[in-house]
């Protein structure tokens, strides 16, 4: 049995604007170490909302979330920030980079914040991650000078930089063409199989979902299918 790295227990979340309505309804599931999980569902069913809860950035919910055996619900924002920095790599739905910094700097910043390695080592690691995504030739460009798909690949490289326990992606391949989607998928697959990093990715791409270890299907804020692997 592989150990459980993420455990969500009876998650409920409400939005109060414009009227009170429940986005997430009694969501419970577990993810094991090294598992590659896809979350699918219709637009507006609450996938992003769930991912933000799991990312520890949104703390306004009912239920409990634990990761790597640690209960995260109820922790202070500062502790959560530290946890995020070290254990979670996040790729946003709308690929966000810092526009004033170069591609390389963008990838390096979370590692500089973690402060585990020297600047020189971090630079090497960052270049390696960029190479993995075929972006090393753009390393010294300003990130605002890249195309949408290129920015998304840089954002993935940044999510990988601290070798996080869990990599979360909100449509990480949303802006990529067939070839690059395939490439990113292979990278993620490799990370989960070789390095036992856990991947949780929201996706609308059925091929992507079909090829992952497990699909969690959501509808109207509930998990309708996804307890078992494919």
């Amino acid at each position, binding site marked *: 049995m592989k150990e459980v790295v993420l455990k969500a227990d009876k998650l409920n979340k409400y939005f109060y604007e414009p009227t009170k309505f429940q986005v997430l309804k009694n969501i419970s599931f577990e993810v094991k170490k090294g598992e590659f999980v896809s979350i699918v569902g219709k637009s507006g069913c609450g996938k992003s909302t769930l991912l933000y809860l799991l990312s520890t950035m949104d703390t306004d919910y009912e239920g409990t979330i634990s990761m790597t055996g640690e209960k995260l619900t109820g922790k202070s924002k500062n502790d959560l920030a530290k946890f995020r920095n070290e254990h979670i790599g996040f790729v*946003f739905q709308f690929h966000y980079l810092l*526009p004033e910094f170069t591609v390389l700097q963008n990838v390096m910043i979370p590692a500089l914040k973690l402060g585990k390695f020297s600047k020189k080592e971090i630079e090497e690691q960052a270049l390696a991650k960029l190479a993995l995504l075929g972006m090393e030739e753009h390393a010294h460009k300003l990130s605002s000078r890249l195309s949408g798909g290129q920015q998304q690949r840089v954002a993935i490289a940044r999510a990988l930089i601290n070798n996080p326990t869990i990599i979360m992606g909100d449509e990480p391949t949303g802006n990529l063409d067939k070839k690059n989607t395939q490439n990113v998928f292979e990278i993620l697959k490799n990370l989960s199989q070789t390095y036992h990093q856990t991947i949780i990715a929201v996706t609308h791409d059925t091929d992507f979902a079909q090829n992952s270890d497990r699909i969690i299907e959501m509808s109207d804020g509930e998990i309708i299918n996804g307890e078992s692997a494919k």
Partner: protein
Amino acid sequence: MKLAFQIAITQLLAKLSQTIVAMLGVTFGIGMFIGMISLMKGLNGFTDDLAMATTPHIRIYNDVKLERTPLLEEIFPNQMNLVHHQKPKNERKDLKNGFQIVNYIKNDPRVLGVSPQLSTQVFYNYGVVQLNGTISGVDILQEDKMFDLQGKIKAGGLQELIPPNDCILIGKGLAKKLNAKVGDRVTITTPQGYTMKLKVVGIFQMGIGAIDDIKSYANIATVQKIMQKDSRFITEVSVKMKNIKESGVVAKEYSKLFDYKAEDWETANATILVGKVFRDILTFAVSFTLLVVAGFGIYNILNMTIYNKMKDIAILKATGFTSGDVVRIFMVQSILIGLVGSVAGLLMGFGLASWLASIPVDFGDAFSLTRLPVSFDPTYYYIGVIFGITTTALAGYLPSRKAGKIDPIQILRG
């Protein structure tokens, strides 16, 4: 912290023109503060110097006593006496033991110089014109030591006043009115009718019309002769302290010791001092306003910057930066703006002060002033920098704290 610094600098440089505008706000505030305060302090210093140029720190003289016990009271102490509109007695107005007092004070270690003198009203005669004025008999060397007479001599010299010759040193305005040059003789007449011819050996200019137009100096013996008094007769002792702040205390001490009126300069010039205090308050109020305005500028610009940087803040937080880290990044930015802006403000202030100091002015004979007086006291430059950085730090704190509180989810939802 190093990382926060790097991020801060990168962001500042990326929006260079915005950064420069913010810095210029501080620069302008500090520069104007220093320029203004330099001029105000220069003017204050000038008027102080003028006042002090001719004012001794302590004057000891025989005050006319109005309140004396009526004679009647002394003779019939036990009955009810009523004396109406009593007149002062015709007392001698000199200091009886004046030279002893001078010798005593000379040995006081707190004193820089002491000068005995006597003065009287005179008429200067120029043809048929009679000009009203005063003549002071002084120990010219002591007087020079205390008031730097040498530096105020415009023509001739003061050496000839050392021996008791019938020589005179006259004010510039007076010389002009009398059409007198060095070497000429002027005739003076005392209210008592004594007339004497004195040779002009020098012309001085104190820079105050009220003095330069009426005053002249002569040897003590000469004035004693004019007043037909004996060689012990002096009316006044003026004292200059090493430390001006001790004047008040020492004056009280002397007053008790010698039993004559000893007046310190602050008491004598109370009105000047009040004016000075008001000018200082005004200067600080205006300067403070300038700095506060600069502070608001920074507050605004930082607020705007943070509004534009919401996405970036959200990303930083999502990748593990704490609120504190974000606050630090923006505080570093505002303090850097404050620091660079303040230093530039110092240069601007110095430039402004130098420019003001080069402006020629002409007050005619009333004041001997050719340029605007400007102070270059470094104290105000320190105050400027400290105030500049404090204001920017305060102005930056509120927006920075707001940045720290930004909820990344709100922004990342898009």
